[in-house]
């Protein structure tokens, strides 16, 4: 790797002796670092602030000059109007069913497959693992035309199963679970076998509980992706009653384009599930993202 070389190669500048000099540079660096981070925070949060504050403005105050940073008067009616303009209760239910279905499917199938690939020996295991991994290279953008034709042939257009089943498992989840389960000691599994536990019971009562952190991270990550899903519902859903939240928001924009207060209200509502997920499962949320950067 040459780490040692890299360290040794650092120029030998004279040691700083004055503690005071050190203290001031640290401090200056500290102020600069805090300033930069604060700028990043502002840029990250401005769209959130603008979305929520605009949802509470009256339409007359939407584009006033000078710009209104704090809504005055506060207009809560936008939320009621937007919610009632379309069947949003139903759309949230649809998104919930789809996201929960896809998440549970991924947790179950990916942990089973990961367990199989990590702890069992059988013919073709290596090839099958590579085949599963290779699906990460097949983006929906490439396969959407034939995938739509398959769903059409199955008569799953405009159905929950059409939204859920194609995404019940993917290569990333299997990879993540396999890597995690590899670290579980084989002795644990073998001693359960000697005690006469059935194979399925070992999976359910020993392997699965040990995988909890990985399962939570994968679950949160999958839920976020499923809640975010837009293109696929756009392709296979034409019935009003089966719209998901992202689909409904984009259609709301095209039909009520200038009702910005209502549009921002519905956008805020559509974000709340993700905010809650992030708020309560922050660690797992970030771990799931960090895991996409895993390598073997």
């Amino acid at each position: 790797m040459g780490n040692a070389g890299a360290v040794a190669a650092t120029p030998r500048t004279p040691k700083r002796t004055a503690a005071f000099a050190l203290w001031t540079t640290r401090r200056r660096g500290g102020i600069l670092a805090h300033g930069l981070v604060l700028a990043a925070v502002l840029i990250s949060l401005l769209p959130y602030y603008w979305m929520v504050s605009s949802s509470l403005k009256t339409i007359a105050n939407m584009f006033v000059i000078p710009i209104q940073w704090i809504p005055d008067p506060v207009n809560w009616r936008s939320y009621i109007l937007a919610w009632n303009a379309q069947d949003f209760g139903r759309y949230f239910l649809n998104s919930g069913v789809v996201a929960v279905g896809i998440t549970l499917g991924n947790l179950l199938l990916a942990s089973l497959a990961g367990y199989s690939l990590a702890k069992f020996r059988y013919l073709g295991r290596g090839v099958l693992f590579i085949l599963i991994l290779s699906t990460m290279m097949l983006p929906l953008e490439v396969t959407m035309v034939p995938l739509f034709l398959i769903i059409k042939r199955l008569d799953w257009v405009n159905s929950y199963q059409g939204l859920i089943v194609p995404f019940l498992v993917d290569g990333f989840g299997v990879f993540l679970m396999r890597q995690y389960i590899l670290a579980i000691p084989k002795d644990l599994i073998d001693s359960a076998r000697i005690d006469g536990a059935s194979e399925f019971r070992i999976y359910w009562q020993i392997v699965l509980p040990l995988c909890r952190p990985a399962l939570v991270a994968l679950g949160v990550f999958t839920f976020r992706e499923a809640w975010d899903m837009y293109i696929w519902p756009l392709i296979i859903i034409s019935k009003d009653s089966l719209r998901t939240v992202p689909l409904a928001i984009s259609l709301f924009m095209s039909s009520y384009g200038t009702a910005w207060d209502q549009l921002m209200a519905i956008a805020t509502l559509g974000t709340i599930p993700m905010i809650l997920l992030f708020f309560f499962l922050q660690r797992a949320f970030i771990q799931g993202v960090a895991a996409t950067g895993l390598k073997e």
Partner: protein
Amino acid sequence: MSSAVRAEPLTARRRLHIGLGVKQAAFGYAILFPTLAVLAVFRFVPMLQAFVISFTKYDLIHPPQFVGFANFVDLVRDPLFLNSMRVSLTYVVFSVLPVWPLSLALAVLFNRSLLVKNLLRSAVFMPVVMPAVVMAVVWTFMYHQDGVINTVLGWAGIDPVPWLRSSSTALWAVILIGIWRATPYYMVIFLAGLQAIPAQYYEAAEIDGAGKWTSFWYITLPLLRPTTLLVMVMTVIVAMKVFAVPLIMTGGGPADSTRVLPLFIYQTAFEFFDMGRAAAMSMFLFAAVILFTVAQIRIFTRGED
């Protein structure tokens, strides 16, 4: 090992009593099967079909007609297709290049001690939390002629920019959102990479009198190389696939200036119902994805030596 290797799933199922190895192999196959089935039907079969459809003319109503390479020949002469390739390339290059230094810089900032660090880090991460469609809708509103972005620019004396209404600015507006969304995502990945660097290296360097920049240049960057390469490849692949945001914000306009390749594929298939042509276009996208994925794999196998 040997008994398991010779075992076949069907005979194994019939003769469970023969040996533990066989029984276990059968269980291994059985729990892998649902995953294989889903991936076969909804990933591999569509991929093969996409390849086949790309050689046909198919409008969903009449049966597909074999046309050989006609779709591909037409495409390379089609100015709209060439335009979408160019738009995609511009999008990839300019939405990806700023993300690398920005996300690394943020990760470095968060890898030191900061006041209320966890709170600040959560705040910076928020763009990743926002659903993509919400992001498209909110930014469309912010890009409004009289919207908040032009107001802030006005403070600096800059005239209002017709962000999404002009073919010379729309793509840049979309690129900016891509950067906003991607930077905190890759910050998290860089941060994981930074935290894996042992602190002793920095301590040793400090004893040798190395400054912060020297440590960064000679310790952080070389040791972060695998993470950096990974981020480079991931950002490019993600950027190549972008299209929900331009679809919602501009529909590909004005004057085709934001019609990235995946968006054009979608529109060809589901607005013009030319499945053969869309499948042929997706082969180009597939080739690009494969190219970068293979590059990624090669980088890692080299890194492990």
